[in-house]
């Protein structure tokens, strides 16, 4: 269709698609926290769901194939928080390093060093 030339990868309406998976999803704790973080970001005025969607779309089709739903969300949330000035890249990098030192598992990462 010549009238849809130039459509972006995420704009899938009307295209052939496979069957819809009707399975229930169970969410990990970290995924629920990502969802809650998005609510907080909106409530605190850092950005809106429009910014989330913009960043998700700009991540491209490869990210859609290789990352899970909430992996894409946390990447898009981070992108928006950096743009909003919530923290600097240096602060983020140093914090990630501190938390990684707690241990290799998510459970270990929950524990603050003095806890």
């Amino acid at each position, binding site marked *: 269709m010549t009238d*849809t030339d130039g459509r972006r990868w995420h704009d899938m309406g*009307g295209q052939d698609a496979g069957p819809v998976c009707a399975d229930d999803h169970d969410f990990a704790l970290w995924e629920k926290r990502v969802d809650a973080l998005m609510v907080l970001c909106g409530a605190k005025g850092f950005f809106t769901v429009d910014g989330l969607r*913009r960043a998700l779309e700009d991540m491209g089709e490869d990210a859609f194939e290789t990352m899970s739903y909430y992996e894409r969300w946390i990447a898009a949330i981070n992108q928006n928080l950096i743009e909003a000035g919530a923290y600097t890249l240096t602060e983020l990098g140093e914090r990630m390093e501190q938390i990684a030192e707690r241990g290799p598992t998510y459970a270990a990462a929950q524990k603050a060093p003095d806890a």
Partner: protein
Amino acid sequence: MPEYVRVKTIMPPGHVRTPAYLRGKTGVIERALGPFSNPEQLAYALPAEKQPLYRVRFTMAELWGTAAEHPTDTLDAEIYGHWLEKI
């Protein structure tokens, strides 16, 4: 009097809320939904002007041509006013 509109055919490479399959298609205003902040500006953390949002009704024949399974069935989509041209 039905108010006919045509969705713009533009294809800007950024965040928009108008699906590609509707671009260039003609529909009828089903109702006006009121003014909402323009998501194309909100998406980039820009000050957003209010845009009128409309529910536009398209026939399957208009959207899919002879491939339409039920040509007289309709599809409603919510489209911002700056994407619509009166015809």
